[in-house]
């Protein structure tokens, strides 16, 4: 299967500002890889290097073994979807989708067939003759997608393609994108700063920060084994609790803390316990003090399907917990009451500030 991408030591600076700092990355054929990172982290720059619109200062990119960086954009055979779709307003939907085929000298009958197939794939066949100005945001998105896949590119690049859509449509389109990728199997590089979107869509996620890849891994690796504080913070609803590292081992607010992975202290590193609210349990062994947190309830809000309970840790950190309407044998805590929470050993994550 074609579409294997090897990115090696790509550097790009604008003046003294380093936008991409020695980025290396392998993308397997057929993989859906997401670049996830905060604004200004270099995601678009990396995508534009792949597409040929930004020339890196050094490094190499090969696709299926051949050097890519020396090719002009139009010879790279990439499908690209922009955030604002960039449909051609002077062409109908059908002509937009047919554009790459006309460039390739495909016969008229063949163009018609492939345009119809591509539009079918995104459920837009009935609007082929429409002007693109008369489309909704979601429809434009689909047309842009159809146009990017109709010529069967070796790689599909998408830069925040869903960010202009409202939440509901975005979630719907995420599932459609996933289905489409399962069906076509085109190697895809996807840019987003929405962590849930990245988790939903990706085979692997590259978390980008400050022009570097902070961590590369599958969604569960990224979520459950973040390598540093930045990644842990960027993914999920995260709170950090300070862990003391004493002679008798690790402790949290004076109670012993049993952890999944041994803490390999670098000199002067303070460990932080990464707390995902949904991993905290309301039940536990009252007599065993290990991994128990004594907190205080500071708020309870009824939200229909659940309660949102705010608890305050001994050092003042507040965490919002979701609690189902009915937990057997446990009273719903009231505001001002103490609560006991437990964190299972296998769900403990320790990170340090250092990258």
């Amino acid at each position, binding site marked *: 299967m074609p579409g294997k991408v090897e990115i090696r030591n790509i550097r790009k600076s604008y003046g003294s500002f380093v936008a991409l700092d020695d980025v290396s990355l392998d993308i397997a054929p057929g993989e859906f890889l997401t670049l996830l990172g905060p604004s200004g982290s270099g995601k678009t720059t990396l995508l534009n290097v792949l*597409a*040929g*619109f930004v020339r890196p200062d050094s490094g190499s990119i090969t696709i299926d073994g051949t050097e890519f960086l020396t090719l*002009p*954009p*139009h010879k*790279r*055979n*990439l*499908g*690209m979807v*922009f955030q*604002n779709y*960039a*449909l*051609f*307003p*002077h062409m109908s939907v059908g002509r937009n989708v047919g*554009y*790459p085929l006309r*460039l*390739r000298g495909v016969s008229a009958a063949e163009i018609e067939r492939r345009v119809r197939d591509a539009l079918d794939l995104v459920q837009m066949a009935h609007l082929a003759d429409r002007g693109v100005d008369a489309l909704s945001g979601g429809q434009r998105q689909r047309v842009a997608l159809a*146009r*990017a896949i109709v*010529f069967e590119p070796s790689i599909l*690049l998408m830069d925040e393609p869903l960010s202009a859509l409202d939440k509901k449509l975005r979630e719907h389109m995420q599932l459609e994108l996933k289905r489409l990728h399962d069906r076509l199997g085109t190697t895809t590089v996807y840019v987003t700063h929405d962590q849930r979107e990245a988790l939903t869509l990706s085979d692997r996620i590259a978390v980008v920060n400050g022009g570097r890849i902070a961590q590369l891994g599958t969604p569960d690796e990224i979520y459950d084994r973040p390598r540093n504080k930045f990644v842990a913070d960027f993914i999920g609803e995260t709170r950090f609790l300070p862990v003391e590292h004493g002679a008798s081992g690790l402790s949290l607010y004076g109670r012993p803390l049993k952890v999944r992975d041994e803490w390999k202290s670098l000199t002067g590193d303070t460990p932080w316990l990464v707390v995902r609210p949904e991993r905290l349990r309301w039940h536990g062994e009252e007599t065993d003090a290990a991994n128990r947190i004594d907190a205080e309830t500071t708020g309870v809000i009824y939200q229909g399907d659940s309660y949102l309970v705010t608890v305050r840790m001994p050092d003042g950190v507040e965490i919002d917990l979701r609690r189902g309407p009915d937990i057997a044998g446990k009273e719903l805590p009231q505001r001002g009451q103490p609560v006991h929470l437990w964190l299972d050993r296998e769900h403990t994550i320790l990170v340090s500030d250092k990258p």
Partner: protein
Amino acid sequence: MLSRPATQTQITHLQRLWLYVLVGLVFLFLIVPCLIVIPMSFSGSKYLEFPPRTWSLQWYEAYLGSPEWRAATFVSLRAALLTTLFATTLGTIAAYGIARVHGAVSSLARGVFMLPMLVPLILLAIGCFFVYAKIGLNGTTTGLVLAHTMLALPFVVIAVLSGLASYDMNQERVAQSLGASRPWAFLTVTLPQIRLSVLSGALFAFVTSFDEVVIALFITGGQNATLTRLMFANIRDQIDPTVAAISSLLIGLSILLLVGSQLLLRKGARK
């Protein structure tokens, strides 16, 4: 309380009278000087006068029957068409470059292209005369077209830049990613969308050249005299109503061009 049935502003026509008078005056001073030559051109007398005491078509006959006038018209038309061609092409490319590139180079280029509009025409004419004298372009069509292209470029650059201001350059990138070379992406994606700006730039270029007289006075003559130059000489030497007849024809032509292009544009916009 409403003082009368609700209109948008509650201001009466009487209260607005001053505005109507002002608008009337603006129109008067805008239009009358343009149109006063039309009645004068149908004069039956030998001199320019308003209003004419007798009427005739003799000055139209004088214009159309004169080989000298016809030759000058041809010179002007040829120069204007060539100027339109060069200025539109160059100006469009320049505007594209200025819009695409950011920073000092872009600002500098923009300044240089605006220069002919800022320098007084008479200085440009003297400059052209001396430069062209050195390289033997005075009295040639090439020289005239070059000088007029210089004059027309700022108009084209401004028109096309304004068209590009609202154009999303990402479209060209998409086109390139879909397989179009950069020039082809420009021709098939960008140009169709800024064509109205290019067209209006071209129209300006044509009119700039066709109407121009100062430079033509300096660098053309004899065989190569433009229509406006001949009209100028005629007014200075004879003041017969032939110029009024020509002017009236030119006004008619301009209106035709404008209306025609408007219709074309509207048709293009609907498509």
